[in-house]
């Protein structure tokens, strides 16, 4: 499928020049967070993007620090939401097109939910909330999906302390195990 008309449609929708990278099925568009939902809705309705392949998030805090790499994150917006869409021909089973949308948000913003468009987004949005603490709008009661309710914080945020443990039972600081010696590489019985 030729993506050019789709891109210009989305550009018109967002009212701003799009930044696109990649080509063909690797094309990634960056859309403003306020328009992300509208873009997904539009792609689904008008261009047959009928499969939500993934909805996830990346934390760019501290990205490239001390290296040559320049963080792609705009100032003050550390989280990148990634929507990956696919247009699947249900008759032939062939993939017509694939497209990804990026949108940059900060920890406080509440991007619009797309779970009414794609029911699969329900769990994915819960995962984004659980792991990154980005909450979607219209979901005030969103529950964690992987971590337990007693867990505090969002473990995939770059500022989650790497050694922090929140066990439900057992000691709180059981992280630093001693190095194993070669003798430990055999089965061992404890009397």
């Amino acid at each position, binding site marked *: 499928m030729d993506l050019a008309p789709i891109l210009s449609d989305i550009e018109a929708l967002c009212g701003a020049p799009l930044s696109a990278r990649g080509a063909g099925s690797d094309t990634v568009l960056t859309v403003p967070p306020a328009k992300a939902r509208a873009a997904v809705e539009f792609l689904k309705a008008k261009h047959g993007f009928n499969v939500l392949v993934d909805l996830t998030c990346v934390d760019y805090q501290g990205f490239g620090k001390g290296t040559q790499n320049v963080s792609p994150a705009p100032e003050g917006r550390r989280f990148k939401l990634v929507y990956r869409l696919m247009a699947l021909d249900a008759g032939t089973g062939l993939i017509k097109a694939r497209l990804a949308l990026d949108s940059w948000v900060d920890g406080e913003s509440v991007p619009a939910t797309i779970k009414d468009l794609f029911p699969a987004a329900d769990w994915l949005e819960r995962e984004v909330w659980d792991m990154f603490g980005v909450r979607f709008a219209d979901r005030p009661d969103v529950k964690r999906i*992987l971590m*337990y309710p007693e867990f505090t914080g969002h473990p995939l945020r770059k500022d*989650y302390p790497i050694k*922090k443990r*929140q066990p439900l039972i057992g000691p709180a600081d059981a992280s630093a195990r001693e190095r194993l010696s070669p003798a430990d590489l055999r089965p061992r*019985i404890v009397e």
Partner: protein
Amino acid sequence: MEQDLSAPGILTSQLDQAIGWARKYSIFQYPFVTACCGMEFMSVACSHYDIDRFGAGFPRFSPRQADVLMVVGTISHKIAPVLRRIYDQMAAPKWVVAFGVCTCTGGFYDNYATVQGIDTILPVDLYIPGCPPRPETVLEGLMLLQKKIQAQGRRA
């Protein structure tokens, strides 16, 4: 008179021997399988390596009927209370096997989600390292466990 007193001692120690022998060859195991180690567990349990030669081929999916709790695979903090409850439900005498490095020490998952060794939440009798352990290693461990069971040693 003295002889009469020593006789029961001999009898019970012989009985212990017999019970230990019976127990070590009739291990009913509860497989608590959570992750990739389960694949290796299956290959030990199936006919190629044939864990049944050691009398340990009979998995029980009720903790009440099991003697050995086989903890196979990564244990997350979320499932830890479940594992502990399974352990508590088992009737004594019972033994616990930590199968694979994830259960021994947390393995390479030194992170927010993983219990850093199941010995932080319950007493472990046998550690089988490996990621996953080869079936031969598991059988070696099983024989160690049998020795311990024969001697009627246990941690809980």
